[in-house]
């Protein structure tokens, strides 16, 4: 590392910076409690399989494109052209389509490498 010339130091100006053990200890303890809670935390978000997602599954879903939103499953637009079979198929799908009741759900098996 390069040494850069600096103005002279003045030890008299130095803050003694007393360090308290208990503040750091309390914060670390709070962190450990949060980790334990997080590891056992069932979120309120459903999974694709129908269960409830663990927090670890939700975090994994962030990194692997595993969050599903209802609009992803929205009905496709009507087919172009005059193919009566395709139009009939689309009409049948539309009749059966019902908008999902969930707002978001977790697909624990998603493996999209780069969601963004």
């Amino acid at each position: 590392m390069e040494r850069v010339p600096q103005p002279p130091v003045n030890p008299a100006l130095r803050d003694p910076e007393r360090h308290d053990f208990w503040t750091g200890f309390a914060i670390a303890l709070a962190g450990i409690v949060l980790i334990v809670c997080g590891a056992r935390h069932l979120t309120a978000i459903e999974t694709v399989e129908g269960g409830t997602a663990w927090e670890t599954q939700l975090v994994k879903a962030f990194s692997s494109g595993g969050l599903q939103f209802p609009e992803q499953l929205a009905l496709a637009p009507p087919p172009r052209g005059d193919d009566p079979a395709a139009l009939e198929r689309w009409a049948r799908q539309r009749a059966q389509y019902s908008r999902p009741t969930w707002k978001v759900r977790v697909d624990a098996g998603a493996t999209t490498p780069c969601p963004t």
Partner: protein
Amino acid sequence: MDNLEPKPKAPATGPPGAPDGCAACGAEGRQREGTVLGRKLSRSRPWVQAGFLGLWLAPAGQWLHGIPGCVFHCYSCPLSAFACPVGVLANYAALLPVAPEAPFLLLGVLLVVAAASGSLVCGWSCPFGFLQDLLGKLTPGKITLPAWTGHTRYAVLAGLVILLPLILGSKGVRFDNQAVSICRLCPAGALEAGLPYSVQGLLTGHGWMMSWFKSALLLAFVAAALFIHRPWCRLFCPLGGLLALFNRFSLFHLRFNPKECVECNLCRSRCSMGVKVDRKVNVSGCIRCLECTTCGAIEPRLAGPKREA
């Protein structure tokens, strides 16, 4: 004050490029214990950083993506072991209007690391910091940025990582589709994920997959790292900013020993982050690379239940 007692005067500042510790010797010319430890730490740091790189690069596969890491390492990297804490936080913020969830794991990991060591992980184990250190070694001169520039990290944390995803999320834009987000602007993502996938795309005939904007961002970052020491850590890293807030409280900390100070100026001149080490050392601008400990008067310490003398 106990730090006002007279001390032997050493030469004010060694010449630039002088061997480490030459001005940090005592009046008799022998090296002090703290100096020896500091120099050992300084020499071992790149090896420790390389060792941690092996840990973050998923030697056991990608089975820990459900756990947020404590360093800045993109989870889209083909070899990432843990989830990026910044990406996870931004995702939580974007999800908040749809499904309010508390990030217990993320907060827990960050609190434990921050309380134990503050920003020590920045200086010793962050893979992106290591990369910037390596890039910085390629060029001799560095532009010195004023200390206040470090506050931009908190603007990035509040604006790009929390508020923007939250606002766009409340408008129904999911995080993956947000045109402006920390993940789309992050040079670590461009380097660790965009670049490997783009090279793979070129090799398999799919072409360059990274957007021109992100490619330009990556080039700009590499250029900046050649002339500014750790530009990302210094100016933008929200994680480093967050961890550094705990430098005042962390169990591991730095302590100035006035009896060892010979006013050699080595502590301040060794600091590449522009911290005024001669005034205060446990500050938010510090990445705890421990280079300042080569002077011998600043000692790495672990706080104990007994009050320090």
